[in-house]
């Protein structure tokens, strides 16, 4: 219990809070890493997932490769890329994108593939082009599943982004690794608390977006 109280005291200390090494700045940095990794993973995962989901092909390849990617230990990946690319942000970023990709790919793919066959067939029979079928029928119907994928990817990256500090980059992991070396446990607990708080806030944000999307497309058929 002492550590928790000490952690709050550490957080409340103005010296720890502000400045380029304060936890506020590190928190922003942490969020920034998370956002960049998630967006990059979206840029790769959504088109790929949509293509596979729409074409109903290469499904096994996607399922098995994302399954394998999920099993990769992120610390190992960060270390490996760190050895290859050197100290800095590139290695952890690459690892975070790799971490975020499976959920986003699965969400994009499952959402599009899961669109009711009748509706897709009707859309084609009415004379929609394949692009129109994808963007006007399958993608809107798969939006809740895609959002779910992005949500879990973002939360995973947020929790794992502490590892960036392991190879010399910033983020809230700085305090974790510093605290570990200097046996400053209140500092470690404090930075963990900030990560937890961020995760809750980000999750709530996604919850709000999710509700807005469901309200604009109230389809009981695809409620999951």
């Amino acid at each position, binding site marked *: 219990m002492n550590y928790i109280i000490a952690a709050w005291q550490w957080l409340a200390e103005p010296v720890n809070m502000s400045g380029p090494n304060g936890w506020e700045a590190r928190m922003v940095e942490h969020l920034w890493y998370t956002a960049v990794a998630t967006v990059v993973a979206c840029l790769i995962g959504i088109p790929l997932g949509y293509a596979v989901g729409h074409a109903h092909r290469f499904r096994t390849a996607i399922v098995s490769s994302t399954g394998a990617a999920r099993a990769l230990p992120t610390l190992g990946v960060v270390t490996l890329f760190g050895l290859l690319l050197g100290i800095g942000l590139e290695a952890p970023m690459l690892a975070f994108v790799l971490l975020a990709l499976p959920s986003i790919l699965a969400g994009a793919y499952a959402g599009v593939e899961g669109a009711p066959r009748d509706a897709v067939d009707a*859309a084609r*029979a*009415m004379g929609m082009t394949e692009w129109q079928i994808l963007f006007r*029928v399958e993608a809107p*119907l798969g939006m809740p599943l895609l959002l779910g994928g992005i949500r879990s990817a973002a939360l995973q990256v947020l929790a794992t982004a502490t590892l960036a500090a392991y190879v010399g980059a910033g983020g809230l992991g700085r305090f974790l690794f510093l605290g570990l070396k200097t046996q400053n446990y209140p500092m470690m607990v404090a930075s963990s608390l900030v990560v937890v708080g961020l995760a809750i806030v980000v999750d709530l944000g996604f919850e709000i977006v999710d509700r807005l999307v469901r309200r604009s497309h109230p*389809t009981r058929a695809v409620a999951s």
Partner: protein
Amino acid sequence: MIEFRGVSKSYDDGTLAVSDLSLTAASHEITVLVGSSGCGKTTLLRMVNRLVTPTSGQVLIDDVDVADRNPVELRRSIGYVMQNSGLLPHRTTVDNIATVPMLRGTPVREARQRAVDLMETVGLDPSLARRYPWQLSGGQQQRVGVARGLAADPNILLMDEPFGAVDPIVRADLQRELLRLQEELGKTILFVTHDIAEAITLGDKIVIVANGGRIAQQGTPAEIMANPVDDFVTTFLGLDESRSLHVDGDLVVDPSGRPVGRLA
């Protein structure tokens, strides 16, 4: 006029869905393709708007081979109504009906207005305009499906068991409605069903399709009923021994004495 010229369709696994079938569906008439499940009648229907490509043979609309037409343009010019309505679950009734006109570039407001007019044409209360498909009954969904098929004012309407999934009372209602609409509109309708009673009710011409996609018999309902060509057609029409009816007082009864109808 829709003409099938020696069309066949076989799949990679060797199944023959349609074999060397020729058929003409006259303009402004309802031609009903009737047959048991898996006989290839839906495959035939889907050849008209190129959802299925025949392995050999041609399908012509007003003497133009559909294979020479752009599939997207072709489909937009043909109405399509399917079983289970196939409505887009994320769009409201009006937007579902207005889909094809909007694809063809009709301004949104105009397309929606026309959609509301069409709702009345098919007997739907305009207050349902902003409902989503899952908020409608099965019969209402099918009416929306019919309105959607008519929205771009196509000359041809393809109907694939459109009333197969609703209860008998609603089905009878929808059938009457379709005949009334046809009086007004005079479309060339190709209608698929497995229900011979429905075929007789709706068809100007009936085509009985036997398994493997070959024509067992075609003609007007009266011609077929009067002269079934073989046992298959006889059984399909319900004119075999087990259904030879006789009159008992006011009732019409079958050989085992069960009442099946009453004299008017």
